[in-house]
């Protein structure tokens, strides 16, 4: 129980730190958000700008802004985006659904693909096919993501004309969604898979050298069944941690894929918010991502406790 309390404390501390960072970082950025609000080539008098600044609460002292910010947070009010003309919470709710769909499917596919191939490649690392797969996945993980996305787009959407160029759908039907999401999901899944692959491979190589694997063989298990009956469960433990860590990366890291495929997701939201200094959106989405990662980490801890009996040893 003691450890659990410590963990909880650490999570809470992390959360508070994130909230503070979240508040401070966007405000440190240069540029006058009011000007960004008005738009290019428009003449506005100082008085009007001042008025707007007041309206946005940007000219109050920092600590006042901070208390107001915390207060709003407690009311689940993430503020209002003057760029996107909606309450941030609403925007986030809308976008998150899509990003979850997009990222979720990719992560699941990637995890499944990476784990399976990685396990097999780790089991027989010396075969040609596995060496090739390993090279391939390493190469994949070493490619800048946007480069891969653009290449995919050129080949499959432009050259072969199999998939559309942009958007989550053309008309909101499952068919259209599937058709539109195919390429971005493939790209993301490949990335996710390459990470999982390398870890799984290393993990299996390490685990299969353990004594229990040898004992499994001594019990009469044969070749690949040792992998599936004994090694894989041990070896996939680190994947749990990775998936949790991945979560944040995938939320924000989908950015490049989203830009290339013109997807209206969290990644582009964050990117636009940074570029446009849309404080409320920036804060809101950072908060959501950080919370998601925290949550994922907590879940990973739990999952770990369930999957690994070494952790939940009874007193």
């Amino acid at each position, binding site marked *: 129980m003691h450890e659990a309390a410590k963990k909880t404390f650490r999570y809470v501390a992390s959360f508070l730190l994130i909230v503070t960072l979240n508040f401070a970082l966007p405000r440190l950025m240069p540029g006058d958000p009011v000007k960004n609000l008005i738009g290019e080539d428009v003449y506005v008098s100082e008085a009007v700008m001042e008025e707007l600044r007041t309206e946005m609460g940007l000219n109050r002292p920092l600590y006042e802004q901070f208390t107001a910010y915390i207060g709003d947070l407690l009311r689940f009010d993430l503020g209002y985006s003057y760029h996107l003309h909606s309450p941030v919470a609403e925007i986030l709710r809308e976008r998150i659904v899509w990003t979850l769909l997009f990222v979720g499917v990719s992560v699941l596919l990637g995890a499944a693909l990476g784990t399976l191939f990685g396990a097999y490649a780790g089991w027989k690392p010396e075969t040609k096919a596995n060496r090739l797969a390993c090279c391939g996945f390493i190469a994949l993980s070493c490619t800048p993501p946007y480069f891969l996305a653009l290449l995919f787009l050129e080949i499959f959407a432009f050259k072969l004309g199999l998939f559309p160029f942009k958007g989550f759908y053309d008309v909101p039907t499952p068919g259209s969604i599937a058709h539109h999401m195919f390429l971005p999901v493939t790209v993301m899944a490949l990335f996710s898979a390459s990470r999982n692959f390398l870890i799984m491979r290393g993990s299996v190589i390490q685990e299969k050298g353990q004594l229990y694997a040898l004992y499994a*063989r*001594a019990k009469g298990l044969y070749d690949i069944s040792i992998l599936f009956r004994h090694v894989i*469960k*041990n070896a996939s433990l680190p994947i749990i941690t990775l998936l949790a860590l991945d979560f944040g990366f995938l939320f924000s890291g989908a950015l490049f894929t989203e830009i290339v495929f013109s997807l209206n997701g969290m990644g582009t939201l964050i990117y636009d918010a940074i570029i446009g200094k849309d404080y409320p959106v920036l804060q809101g989405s950072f908060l959501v991502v950080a919370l998601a990662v925290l949550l994922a980490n907590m879940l990973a801890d739990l999952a770990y406790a369930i999957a690994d009996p*070494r952790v939940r040893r009874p007193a």
Partner: protein
Amino acid sequence: MNTLLEVKDLNVSFQGNENENKTGNKSENKNETVTAVSCLSISIREKETLALVGETGCGKSVVAHAIMRLLPPESIVKGTIEFKGKNLLKLSEKEMAKLRGKEISIIFQNPSLALNPVYSIGHQLAEPLRIHTQKMRWKEKEGKKEKVKQKEKREKKKENSNLSKVSRALKRVGFSNPREYMGYYPSWCSGGMNQRFLIAASTMLDPVLLIADEPSKGLDRDRVSELENELKGLKEKSETSLLLISHDLGFVRRLADRVAVMYAGEIVEIADPSSLFESPLHPYTRGLLNSLPERGFVPIPGASPPLSNPPAGCRFHPRCPIKEKRCTQERPELKESNGRAVRCFLCP
């Protein structure tokens, strides 16, 4: 009594590591071949306990792994290992897999690591049952759909019978409430408990040959005597032959029917325990016994030679108190006389 296992001229060598050692001693580590076991011949009769005794690094565990064919594929194994008349080294991996766990079982020296940390004890104990009864199920699968329900029932029954078998096995190794322990995981239990689980798992299918690889290593005195009783009980109750590999002379003395002493990859002496311990022939055996506490910790000077570069002639000659000139040049053979064998020119 029939001979169950006959090992003849077993040679096991490992290809050394070709890349240079990080510590800088390039010349020493280059392309060396480690011959872990050379010209080893032993036989085990049915219901017999043969002990293989020797110090760390003398190659005794390699023998065990060679018999089970658990050595990595890169190792070079020569000679014959005949088990019930079949040469194990000639069997295919699949055929060997059928033997492992069913006919020949092994208990590893480190029970906590030999058990899979993420599966429950019950699951792991039942595993040999599942593995070695699978063939039946395959046949069932050929049946048609109408048999599916029956099959399911049978499977459930099988699972239940498996469970009861497991709990019986656990009881046998001294757990009064096996059902509770079946839900435990290896990391929750002490080394001694794990040792017993391991024994239970390995003897689940009443193997003809049980190999115990340093079972007493790392255990407390109390635990060792428990283990001793365990093995004694096993010997009495079942038809199992035991190949006991250990460095603990006292332990061996109490359990073995015959003892083989190994030094630097070779067997230097084979004898029954009483004659071995009372009148050891080989100078190494003598030295070894003298360094025991009860004989006043009289050490053998020097250290064991590296297996990668054994001395010429008798491998023990650099440390031998009674060596002669020929000991340094010629290699002695294992000479047998009235039930004992010894590898020394100077011993009758």
